[in-house]
């Protein structure tokens, strides 16, 4: 199987990354719009009650508006984190397709991916704790510690170190006459 070029694994992965990136942009934009809409509706309930007559569930929806807005905002932040990761991976991939995977910038990009993964996991715990505090009767997220969530962080940092050594060897090769 070819390593680079049309029909290769890398071209297939590049398509996946591009699709995910565009999908995340659309998703984050929609979440941002929904967050603003829920916030506005919670401050001005007449906007929804004057147009719709759904029943008592609307009142409950309106009373928990800020909570929903917070949940949506947290979701948007989470998706934003994934966007940063995918964007960095796309840049790493562009150096691969250019035939220079051990570019020194890739070390920094992989470290950013590792840090964002760790931040997302910590944010997950914070969000779970806040949700439990603000809405104890609802189980929005599970904030329990998960080793499988931290393992990718370790993997990415190990890969970043491998790339750092690769970048050093690349520099050595450049200065070998």
């Amino acid at each position, binding site marked *: 199987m070819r390593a680079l070029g049309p029909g290769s694994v890398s071209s297939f992965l590049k398509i996946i990354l591009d699709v995910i990136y565009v999908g995340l942009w659309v998703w984050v934009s929609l979440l941002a719009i929904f967050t603003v809409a829920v916030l506005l509706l919670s401050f001005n309930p007449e906007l929804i009650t004057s147009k719709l007559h759904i029943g008592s569930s609307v009142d409950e929806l309106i009373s928990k508006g800020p909570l929903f807005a917070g949940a949506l905002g947290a979701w948007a932040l989470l998706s934003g984190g994934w966007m940063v990761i995918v964007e960095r991976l796309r840049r790493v991939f562009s150096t691969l397709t250019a035939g220079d995977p051990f570019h020194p910038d890739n070390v920094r990009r992989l470290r950013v991916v590792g840090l964002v993964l760790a931040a997302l996991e910590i944010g997950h715990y914070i969000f779970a704790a806040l949700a439990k505090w603000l809405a104890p009767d609802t189980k929005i997220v599970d904030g329990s510690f998960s080793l499988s969530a931290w393992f990718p962080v370790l993997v990415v940092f190990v890969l970043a170190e491998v790339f750092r050594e690769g970048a050093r060897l690349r*520099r*050595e090769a450049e*200065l*070998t*006459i």
Partner: protein
Amino acid sequence: MAIRVQLDRILLERRMSLTELSDRVGVTIANLSILKTGKARAVRFTTLDALCRELNCQPGDLMTYEPGPGEAHEED
């Protein structure tokens, strides 16, 4: 690094330009400049062989070891 490349001096003695040497040994001028200015980290035996052949010299004529203060027993 305490290795000094004497390419400038040898080229002057042979009245040869860097461009001419580049054509003869098949190494780019950019790479020869890196070698000449002492920025190179390593030299391939094939490059050294070509340089010695075209400049009619020994490897020891091209490079000398000149340790600076505190460099005599240090590994770089």
